[in-house]
């Protein structure tokens, strides 16, 4: 036990590690905030940059960037309506209206405090619950991963738009795009049409930057005449009363965020959307209607997405399975440094686990002062005319896309996705489900086939297993509930139940 304590404080007592964590958090906030730069991209680049470092140093820097980046996406979501990271999609829904009302400062202050709060709850869960959770997750079969992945896509599709059909279409499109390339199980090419480029699949970062960055830049071209609202960024530190009022919601959403972050493949982005949905369903009297600047609409996603970061560490450290895209990259780094993420990690190298926990706490502590400062500079950036800002964002997007593999073809992909995303947005489709489909497509593919093969290629046996295993049955129920809650049948039934006379 004393050993664990010493490893916990390792990054606190070593000046270099302290500096790296702080630098990482600071850089992460701005990387996350600038649309066109993604945390995944930054972490990927840093993995290659830090190969020669010791694993602790690399992890310290990356933890800071990750935590800072997930929070940072909220800044541009609030000020520009461009989520800097997918985890901030829900934040823009109420954050941007708040900014338009001139309350950007309050919004940023609130999200900062709530993010730090969520982070602590997540870290607590990581420290206390990781061993227990790893035991449960060991019982997950491939079909359960399949259900989780589909559920994640459905959630994104149903939460952020008016049409479930459009959301499902987008998700399926994403899955198909994710299928392009070599089949992981048989190594044959799918949708490759003899092209070497396509054999390595569709570049994920180009897709993300294209769908989220470039398409939004194009969409914003419709609003060039709109002068950016002068932001009131004076009242940043939120009043204690305001915080206390939303504390219960923040706590619940942090719990949601931690659990979802812990689910494989589902990370801050889904956590934020589910928390937002939860807030919508449970807040009877929001400060304002949702979508028009409700504080609850900020508190929910931001506490959830920051709680999801330590949450995503849970499966990564205990199972060797990524909690989301960033942790997928981190797992690669751990392997390079000679470590074996998996159930044995806690037994063989417990110090790594405690180091990560202590490091995350440190990064979270840095987040508070850093998040509450530097806003004036950032706001000044926002007050620049769009004609200046948008080309710059485009250049950053191009660099970010190019930087991954020094391949100009990726930049072409970025533009193609950008234009496609633009038209999809204009006609009412969401791009969030597309990206999730791309990330989770391979997981769906492999899980489905493993489950089907172990059912002997018999569809009936395959389906039967979903109902016989308790974990699977629960997941099926959750999935069905999500789908049904979107249909008119549900709304009608609920309506009838409400109107039923009470005796």
């Amino acid at each position, binding site marked *: 036990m004393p050993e664990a304590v010493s490893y916990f404080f390792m990054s606190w007592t070593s000046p270099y590690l302290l500096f790296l964590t702080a630098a990482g958090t600071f850089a992460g906030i701005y990387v996350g905030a600038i649309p066109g730069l993604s945390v995944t991209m930054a972490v990927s680049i840093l993995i290659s940059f830090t190969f020669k470092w010791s694993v602790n140093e690399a992890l310290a820097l990356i933890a800071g960037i990750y935590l800072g980046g997930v929070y940072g996406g909220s800044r541009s979501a609030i000020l520009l309506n461009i989520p800097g990271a997918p985890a901030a999609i829900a934040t823009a829904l109420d954050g941007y209206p708040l900014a338009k009302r001139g309350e950007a400062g309050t919004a940023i202050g609130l999200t900062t405090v709530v993010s730090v709060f969520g982070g602590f709850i997540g870290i607590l869960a990581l420290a206390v619950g990781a061993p227990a959770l790893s035991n449960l997750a060991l019982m997950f079969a491939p079909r359960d991963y399949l259900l989780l992945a589909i559920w994640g896509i459905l959630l994104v599709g149903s939460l952020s738009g008016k*049409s479930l059909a459009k959301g499902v*279409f987008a998700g399926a499109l994403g899955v198909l795009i994710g299928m392009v390339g070599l089949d992981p199980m048989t190594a044959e090419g799918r949708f490759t049409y003899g092209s070497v480029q396509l054999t390595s699949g569709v570049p994920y970062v180009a897709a993300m930057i294209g769908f989220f960055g470039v398409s939004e830049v194009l969409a914003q071209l419709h609003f060039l005449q709109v002068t950016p609202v002068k932001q009131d960024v004076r009242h940043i530190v939120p009043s204690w009363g305001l915080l206390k009022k939303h504390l219960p919601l923040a706590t619940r959403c942090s719990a949601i965020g931690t659990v979802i972050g812990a689910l494989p493949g589902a990370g801050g982005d889904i956590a934020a959307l589910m928390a937002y949905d939860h807030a919508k369903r449970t807040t009877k009297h929001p400060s304002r209607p949702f979508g028009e600047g409700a504080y609850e609409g900020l508190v929910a996603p931001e506490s959830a997405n920051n709680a999801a970061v330590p949450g995503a560490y849970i499966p990564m450290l205990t199972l060797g399975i990524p909690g989301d895209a960033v942790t997928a990259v981190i797992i690669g780094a751990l392997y390079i440094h000679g470590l074996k993420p998996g159930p044995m990690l806690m037994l063989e190298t417990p110090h790594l686990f405690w180091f990560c926990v202590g490091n995350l706490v440190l990064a979270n502590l840095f987040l508070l002062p850093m998040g509450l400062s530097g806003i004036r500079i950032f706001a000044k950036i926002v007050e620049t005319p769009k004609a200046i800002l948008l080309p710059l964002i*485009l250049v950053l997007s191009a660099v970010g896309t190019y930087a991954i593999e020094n391949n*100009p073809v990726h930049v072409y992909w970025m533009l193609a996705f950008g234009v496609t995303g633009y038209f999809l947005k204009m*006609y009412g489709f969401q791009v969030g489900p597309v990206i999730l489909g791309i990330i989770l497509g391979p997981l769906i593919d492999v899980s489905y086939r493993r489950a089907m093969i172990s059912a002997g290629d018999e569809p009936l046996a395959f389906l039967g297993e979903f109902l016989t295993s308790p974990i699977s049955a629960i997941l099926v129920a959750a999935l069905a509930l999500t789908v049904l809650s979107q249909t008119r049948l549900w709304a009608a039934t609920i309506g009838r139940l409400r109107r039923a006379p009470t005796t």
Partner: protein
Amino acid sequence: MTPSDRRLPGELVFVLVLLLFAATALWQAFRISGLASWSAPGAVPMLAALVMLVAAVRVAVATMRRPPADVPPGSTLSREFGHALVPRVIVAFTLLIVLYMFALEPLGFVVASFLFLAAGMWVLGSRRFIYNAVISAVSLAVIYVIFQTAFSVVLPDGVLKGVL
């Protein structure tokens, strides 16, 4: 669930194109491994394409039910499409992006980006040419330094090979 507002110009065409795309995807997915087995490489692609097709049909039906786009007298549908969806500034900016992408390697990152930034700002409405050029140069310098030193990203030299 379906709003009773009018369709946007070009929306029906777009949705039908998506439908066609979904059908094509299903056909292409089928060609991967046919109906060989439930766990063949083509299984998930086909299932995804099927889901996409069903969703596309629902969207198409819902879109067709809505009243057609509002075309004011004296205008045509394609003109309204241009006005609402692809106004001149978007077309110009997109063309600029395409030129930028093609110029990245031959001209190099610094030169191509500078030209793109200056031209882009002008196209988007900032007509203060000197101001544009200065901002472009300064921000480009910052970006270049950060990405080269902190991230060790190798950006194409192009025309400036040997100079930087």
